[in-house]
């Protein structure tokens, strides 16, 4: 461990603002990208599932009418 205390770790030898700005921005952007990618995948699957179910209901209804 390079630092003596946690507050020293946060201070980063006086460069705390710049170091934590960098790491903060990085994790924010990366987690945003991961979350968006997972969300888009799940969202589209759900949407497609609903579409397929609706089509099947329409088909069933049409078959009953005949």
């Amino acid at each position, binding site marked *: 461990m390079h630092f003596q205390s946690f507050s020293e770790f946060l201070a980063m030898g006086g460069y705390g603002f710049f*170091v934590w700005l960098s*790491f903060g*921005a*990085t994790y924010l952007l990366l987690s945003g990208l991961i979350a968006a990618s997972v969300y888009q*995948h799940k969202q589209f699957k759900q949407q497609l599932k609903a579409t*397929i179910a609706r089509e099947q209901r329409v088909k069933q209804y049409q078959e009953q009418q005949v």
Partner: protein
Amino acid sequence: MFKWLDPYAKSETLYHFCGKLLPYLMVSALALLLLGNIWGLAFTPADYQQGDSYRIIHIHVPSAIMSMGAYAAMASAAFVALVWQIKVAHWAVLAIAPIGAIYTAIALITGMAWGKPMWGAWWVWDARLTSELILLFLYLGVIALNGAFSDRQVGAKVSSLLALIGVINLPIIHFSVEWWNTLHQGATITKFAKPSIDPSMLWPLLISILAFAVLLMALTCLRLRTAILVNEQHRPWVRKLVGG
């Protein structure tokens, strides 16, 4: 020679292959990122000139290297898409572009936060910084161009072409610190020389670079799967997979 690759051009095979890889890639990417960054932040000595500000290197260099690696991967996919007319290759181009754009943005933001305390300026119109900014515009251009045509086939072709032309920017970024007078420091790790960084700092850096590389693969798998579903939504195998 490359016959064994053929089945992976089939979207259904590729979808399942990516699905199999995805959890391993994602978990190892996050584990490597945590390991490399915690090591680099807390367990390495401070730099003799730059003090603790140099710790930004542990995300700046990985994101910058992989912003170029992602571009090389995207351009290779664009080449395959244009030459062999393989549709999944073009979906791969579009899957990688946003990841590359985010990596480039991270490299630029962390570079600014490093430049302010070391150079005294957030931004300078220096060759390295400018060419990396152009890389961001290339990524955004590929995404925008793909959506700019009412005929999707034309959009696919034009955006792949832009991705290929943009490859010229990669050597410019790489050699910019040698070709022009620049504020940006030279390469820390090179293939041909002993790294100019102490081994105690090198290891966490290499781990973080690997983490960004594996995360790129994981996100590409995930985004490519979504693209395959969207583009093949009327195909029977997707209907069976999602609906049944």
